């Protein structure tokens, strides 16, 4: 899908909307005696914003790490489905599936699974532009001799990929930071650069680990808007970990809830926020979210009747 005035689609998935994109199938992950994940299963659908919530230490980040190949679960499978529709060049792509659980993380990235990290993990000595260009890494060829020569293929390739990067810069409004070393940027901007770097991969699936932690209300609104733009304009499927329930409820299509490494709920935001188990483990009785309170009240009424 090409949108706005952009020439490149940022969506790397050729899967038609509504089909399963990622299947997490009964995975378990242990570190020594610590059970970080136990028999977790759920499915991410193409075109959804899929939120994962849960108390601290529930295993959310570990789950993301399993998907992106940084951790390898001892049991279970994670499958990424591709194809079944047209890619961004308009060509039909055969349906296929990849077993992520056996791949090293760079191979997962090559399949178009991009991510951001809970504690910003940018290349701090490089500029914003270089960080974003690195997002293009999997799409570029890296021949030593051509690089040394510069003139010729290397230069051509740099310019070619720069076009897409500039579109991401434009989308995320990073124009004024292009040449700044990211280490010196404000926290909120860094978070945005990290999102941008992931987008440059042209992701089939975007994994975001607490993209709004440490932001104040207005910055959260900005970030939510960026994520929605990415999702709505570019059509990228997103898996999102977030503790701010207002954000989760507002922007996600589906929510999975983890507690102590187990999946305790999985459903639409409305279903989940009314789930007593979720309220007990995660939201608390006196949550700040008015809607949650509402839902609770309604449930109370229902049971009273």
């Amino acid at each position, binding site marked *: 899908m090409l949108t706005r005035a952009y020439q490149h689609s940022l969506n790397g998935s050729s899967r038609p909307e509504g089909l399963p994109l990622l299947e997490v199938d009964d995975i378990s992950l242990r570190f020594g005696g610590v059970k970080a994940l136990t028999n977790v299963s759920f499915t991410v659908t193409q075109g959804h914003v899929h939120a994962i919530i849960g108390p601290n230490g529930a295993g959310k*980040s570990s789950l993301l*790490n399993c998907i992106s190949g*940084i951790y390898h679960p001892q049991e279970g499978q994670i499958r990424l489905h591709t194809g079944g529709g047209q890619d961004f060049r308009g060509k039909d792509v055969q349906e296929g599936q990849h077993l992520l659980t056996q791949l090293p993380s760079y191979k997962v990235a090559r399949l178009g699974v991009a991510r951001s*990290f*809970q*504690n910003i*993990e940018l290349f701090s000595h490089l500029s914003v532009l270089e960080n974003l260009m690195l997002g293009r890494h999997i799409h570029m060829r890296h021949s030593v001799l051509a690089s040394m020569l510069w003139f010729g293929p290397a230069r051509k390739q740099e310019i070619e990929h720069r076009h897409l990067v500039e579109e991401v810069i434009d989308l995320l409004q990073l124009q004024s930071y292009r040449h700044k070393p990211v280490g010196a940027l404000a926290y909120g901007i860094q978070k945005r650069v990290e999102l941008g770097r992931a987008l440059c991969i042209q992701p089939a699936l975007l994994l975001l680990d607490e993209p709004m932690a440490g932001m104040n209300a207005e910055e959260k609104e900005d970030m939510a808007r960026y994520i929605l733009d990415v999702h709505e304009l570019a059509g990228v499927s997103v898996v999102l970990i977030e503790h701010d329930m207002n954000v989760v409820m507002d922007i996600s299509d589906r929510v999975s809830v983890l507690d102590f490494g187990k999946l305790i709920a999985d459903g639409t935001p409305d279903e989940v926020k009314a789930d007593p188990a979720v309220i007990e483990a995660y939201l608390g009785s006196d949550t700040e979210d008015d809607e949650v309170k509402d839902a609770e009240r309604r449930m109370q009424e229902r049971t009273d009747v």
Partner: protein
Amino acid sequence: MSTLVAVLAYGLADGAILALAALGFVLIYKATSVINFAQGEFLLVGAYMFYTAFVVMGLPLLAAVVVGVVVATIIGVLVERLILRPMIGESPISIIMVTIGLSSLLRAVVQMFYGTSPKSMPKILPTGSVNILGATVPLNRLLVILVAAVVLTAFTIFFRRSRHGIAMRAVADDQQAAMTMGISVRRIFAMAWALAGVSALIAGVLLADISAVDQNLAAFGLLVFPVVILGGLDSVPGTIVGGIIIGLLKQATASYWDPGLATVIPYVVLVLILLVKPYGLFGETRIERV
């Protein structure tokens, strides 16, 4: 059989001294995350300080030891204060380079004052020998093992028992956070360097006693690396195990195989160990969480 006994005695003695030298290295690393390439020169300086007090100034043994300890402490603290403190927060490799610079400086200064020819020093440890299972083993090697064992035990207990142990590790992990706990980072740093100076002094004097007071003492310091890597950069017990293994290995290679090879065998072992255990036998794994 008698060869075996000799290998054990000489290997353990070398190993014990290596462990002492490595101890200082590990303390510095543990508290300040600094890789000290000048550890061998600390040995050298320690030995020459002691030589100066004992031979040149003619002090009695005990007084010479005290003078040596005091000077070693002062040097340790000065090095920390003048050279490493300004480097806090710089990249590890810059800090490595500073200590390389320091090693060059220290060796050159010793050379300026004392020249390059070996100094003769009266033996401190008794020179007799004992017969063990048919092998003649010099008494001084046995005593070296004993002295080193005592010193190493004392250090180990000190760190186990006192909260300074935890404070040191805390400082190594996160200096700022340690400050917010009321831990004086400067004091800990100074302490680490001073202790390293003292342990190097002891190692240097023992080594000088069984060989000679000369520039070779510094070269011995390079062997600290295989020792600490083997044991794990930040493990005090690791230095002991590493020192003993390297000491024995060298001696055994020299006795049963090829003495030339004995100089590189520690490095070969080091590479092999690292391939199996990237953090040495007892080293702390670097924590990387995303």
